[in-house]
């Protein structure tokens, strides 16, 4: 297939339809509304269903119902709307249902703003909803990678019977880049014999549920989920290591911010400073070992984020005290400027160690 120029938000829709997504339930919110608009237009042509819900809460529960009935299904929103979906995401994880959730993150807290941000990192990777659950969280840095991860995300969800989240920001959602819709590597997906499709000739009823009133049963369920999360942690780590052969400092950044770091690397090179980049693509599972491995080869790390410092905690866990971990962030919808990051790096490297 030839590459076509697509806007990020619309590319999400095209990739989802190509991946066989049959249902989209969503509610308008800036800066992701082009996606539901695209789905409303394009899904009927593909024999699929777009339904605008009365709220984000209803949308995620429609996702629960459809996923429980065996459908490939997704929803999308932006930060405040994703907060509203957290109850449903916890239930979906608890009831072991596969689905894809897209968060085009905007500045917070509260209504915040509508410009690009990465301040939902904690919410996405550390729980968000109640209870012990995890989900694979993928953070693309280009429109091509966005479509690749949307398509693979559905398969990951089906493989583990677990929600998968894709996080981007308004910049990725609005930018246009050439894209080719590529099939992900084939996975061995289990049949959805647990779905509530009517008991028919099955001889037994299927029940989709996350209630275990007996604490011993509830703990057993949690242990089963944990075993699954351990498998996800082992199998689903994705990251990019760039220019880390002989770094003075390694920047850790994801999504839009990682693109900015590539500019920072060029600028620093001109000044004789070698900056490496470790780009987590899966924010959960987080590539702690990669950070630890490169701790032996760099003087320091700097976590660069569009937040007040969230991923930096994971970078510190990865560095495990071996090297100092610094932070530089802009937030509220402000995007870091390469020159400011260069100045911060010079300050760190010029300072006393």
């Amino acid at each position, binding site marked *: 297939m030839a590459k076509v120029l697509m806007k990020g938000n619309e590319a999400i829709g095209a990739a989802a339809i190509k991946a066989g997504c*049959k*249902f989209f*339930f969503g509610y308008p919110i800036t800066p992701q509304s082009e996606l539901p608009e695209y789905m409303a237009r394009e899904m009927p042509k593909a024999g699929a*269903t777009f*339904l605008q*819900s*009365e*709220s984000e*809460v*209803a*949308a995620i*529960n*429609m*996702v*629960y*119902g*459809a*996923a*429980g*009935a*065996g*459908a490939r*299904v997704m929803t999308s929103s932006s930060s405040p709307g994703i907060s509203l979906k957290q*109850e*449903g995401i916890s*239930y979906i994880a608890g*009831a072991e249902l596969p689905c894809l959730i897209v968060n085009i993150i905007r500045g917070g807290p509260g209504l915040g703003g509508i410009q690009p941000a990465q301040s939902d990192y904690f919410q996405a990777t550390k729980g968000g909803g109640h209870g012990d659950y995890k989900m694979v969280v993928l953070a693309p840095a280009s429109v091509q990678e966005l479509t690749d991860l949307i398509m693979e995300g559905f398969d990951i969800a089906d493989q583990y019977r677990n929600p998968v989240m894709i996080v981007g920001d308004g910049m990725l959602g609005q930018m246009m880049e050439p894209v080719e819709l590529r099939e992900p590597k084939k996975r061995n997906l289990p049949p959805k014999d647990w779905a*509530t*499709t*009517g*008991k*028919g*000739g099955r001889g037994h*009823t*299927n*029940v*989709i*549920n*996350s*209630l275990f009133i007996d604490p011993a049963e509830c703990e057993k369920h949690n242990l089963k989920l944990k075993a699954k999360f351990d498998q996800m942690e082992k199998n689903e780590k994705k990251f990019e290591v760039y220019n880390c052969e002989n770094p003075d400092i390694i920047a850790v950044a994801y999504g839009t911010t990682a693109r900015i770091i590539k500019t920072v690397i060029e600028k620093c090179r001109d000044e004789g400073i070698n900056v490496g980049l470790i780009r987590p693509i899966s924010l959960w599972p987080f590539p702690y070992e990669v950070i630890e491995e490169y701790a032996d080869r760099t003087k320091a790390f700097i976590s660069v984020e569009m937040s007040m410092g969230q991923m930096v905690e994971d970078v510190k866990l990865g560095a495990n005290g071996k090297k100092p971990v610094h932070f530089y962030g802009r937030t509220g919808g402000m995007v870091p400027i390469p020159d400011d990051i260069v100045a911060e790096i010079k300050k760190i490297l010029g300072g006393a160690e």
Partner: protein
Amino acid sequence: MAEMVFKRTKGLQDRPFHYCPGCTHGIIHRLVAEVLEELDVLDNAVGVAPVGCSVFAYDYFNCDMQEAAHGRAPAVATGIKRTLPDNVVFTYQGDGDLASIGTAEIVHAAMRGEKITTIFVNNAVYGMTGGQMAPTTLVGQKATTSPFGRDRDHAGAPIRMSEMLATLDGPAYIERVTVTSPANIRKAKKAIKKAFQAQIDGKGFTMIEVLSTCPTNWGLTPVEAIKWLEENMVPYYPLGVYKTPEEVE
């Protein structure tokens, strides 16, 4: 050899109910189960259980079930029905679930005319959590969070869901029934059957509101509770048809 004159419907699993003595959930479960059996849809039905006293409904109905978050059953049922348009999909919800936390979901499922059937069990109190005031609690009725009786100036007057939803174009059939006597039980079953039939016929959203007792939290004996329901709830929540499938053509 004795003749079998009464047996458990195939619509119910062989499990003891957890409901309190005198609670009418058991009767309502049985009516729904009998209707599903008689319409021969147990094999293709998918039910949605609520949060509240009937949270374990998924253990009782002999069909595929999903357990929803509190109030979200109509949204979950929407996801199921859109995925499986040929299946019979129903929600079973109490008044805290449907008329309080889940008001948005029930109104919009009704507005869209989702082809689902909702069994709405109204006992004017939060039962499972121990008898707190519900949006359906009558003015003057004592509950653990309205210890001096519901004060209209403070907590408003109870919400009449059937009347409210009947103002929408989406519903095909809405009726309020009760199960306080054999005659009323027969009427309730007829209404429930008609609602499922209307769904099967693709008419639109259907809801049967069933006035139900809660002797435990009302602090009454089962017999007193039946009397209290008839003397207090029925005047405020009149029985009858609020929307008929015949009007929807």
